[in-house]
């Protein structure tokens, strides 16, 4: 199983019936593919839709129904649309139960940096800062390391997205949470040892007595 699939499958297990969920671009988008069909999960697209469905069949796309990247999507029965003030009222107001976002860095206290790399392109934060400030649970779905460097750092060197700690980080190697503000290893990926996780993690990790293997 590739890294992205491991992450997406594990994140999907965090969702419950009735949840309103916002998925960011990249790996988070894949999470929708692994939600068990018996769960009724509402996916929000922050450009103004609850009830996003899969990419429409050939010839059935509508130019006025897209995701936040401008790509055609479909709407499930029971979908609703709204303007951007309502969409971000839902986000900032804590009505989104779970947001799943990509990350550039998460630090030992759970602070996320995911919106800019100084000196490079400055794309803008879009809705990321509101999502991290407002959603009930913030889950970061990302590779554990990039180009040989840990993305779980002692302290973020990139500009923060929010000073609010995230709830959970799911990588291709581990699941990490931040009880009492300390990065804590909750699970390891299949066939990854605790020692291997520690070796590729810059942040100091609290290691509980039992660290089960991810169920994915």
């Amino acid at each position, binding site marked *: 199983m590739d890294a992205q699939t491991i992450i997406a499958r594990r994140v999907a297990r965090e969702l419950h019936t009735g949840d309103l969920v916002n998925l960011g671009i990249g790996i988070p988008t894949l999470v929708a593919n692994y939600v068990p069909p018996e769960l009724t999960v509402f996916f929000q697209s922050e450009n103004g839709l*609850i*009830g996003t469905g899969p990419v429409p069949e050939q010839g059935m796309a509508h130019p006025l129904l897209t995701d936040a990247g401008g790509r055609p999507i479909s709407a499930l029965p029971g979908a*609703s649309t709204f303007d951007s003030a309502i969409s971000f*009222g839902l986000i900032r*107001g804590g009505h989104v139960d779970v947001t799943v976002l990509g990350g550039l860095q998460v630090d030992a206290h759970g602070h996320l940096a995911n919106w800019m790399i100084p000196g490079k392109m400055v794309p803008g934060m879009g809705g990321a800062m509101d999502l991290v400030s407002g959603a009930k649970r913030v889950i970061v779905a990302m590779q554990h390391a990039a180009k040989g460097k840990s993305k779980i750092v002692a302290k973020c060197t990139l500009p923060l997205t929010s000073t609010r700690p995230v709830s959970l980080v799911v990588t291709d190697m581990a699941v990490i949470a931040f009880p009492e503000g300390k990065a804590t290893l909750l699970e390891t990926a299949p066939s990854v040892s605790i020692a291997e996780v520690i070796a590729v993690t810059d942040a100091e990790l609290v290691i509980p007595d039992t660290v089960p293997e991810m169920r994915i």
Partner: protein
Amino acid sequence: MRAVSVEEAVAMIPAGASIMVGGFMGVGTPERLLDEVVRQQKSRLSLISNDAAVPGKGVGKLFDATLVSRLTASHIGLNPKAQQQMLADQLAVDLVPQGTFVERIRAGGCGLGGVLTPTGVGTSVAEGKRQIEVNGTTFLLETALRAQFALVHAFLADYLGNLTYALTARNFNPVMAMAADTVIVTAEHIVPVGVIAPDHVMTPAPLVDYLITNR
């Protein structure tokens, strides 16, 4: 969302709870929920409602039964019972300009700490409030308002909890449906999913916690 009986829903509300109730002079108010609140004698309520309606109608029923100990509203002039209870110190009343009232609730529902409004600057409404200047204009800082429960009346509700409101019965309902920990809804008609077109939904399903079933 869960579908429950009106008795079950109201049983969740403790005495002394803060409740927002939709409606404007009793129009768009969830009467069945209020009747049950009266039947179960939920007392010492902190009521957040645009007005006190009139005796026998809408939130007026709560004053008939003297169940309200604190009221936040913009207008109570047409309910003599609410007036009497206020003058007898049985009821604490916080009067708020109507536009400020709805913005405070909206702020509460949308995760804002408050808004800056020109309404009330230099009047008795400004007493005890922070004044903030922006580009040479003075505004009042009006803070967010939330409640434990919102009692909402819709026109159509579908099986998922998507809501629409009709005509002037919309008023404060969709704003309150975002500003409470628990949102309980009555609807004139409960319809299958898909009957309400996505563009016509006024309160998206995930905001609704409990929908009262038909009798």
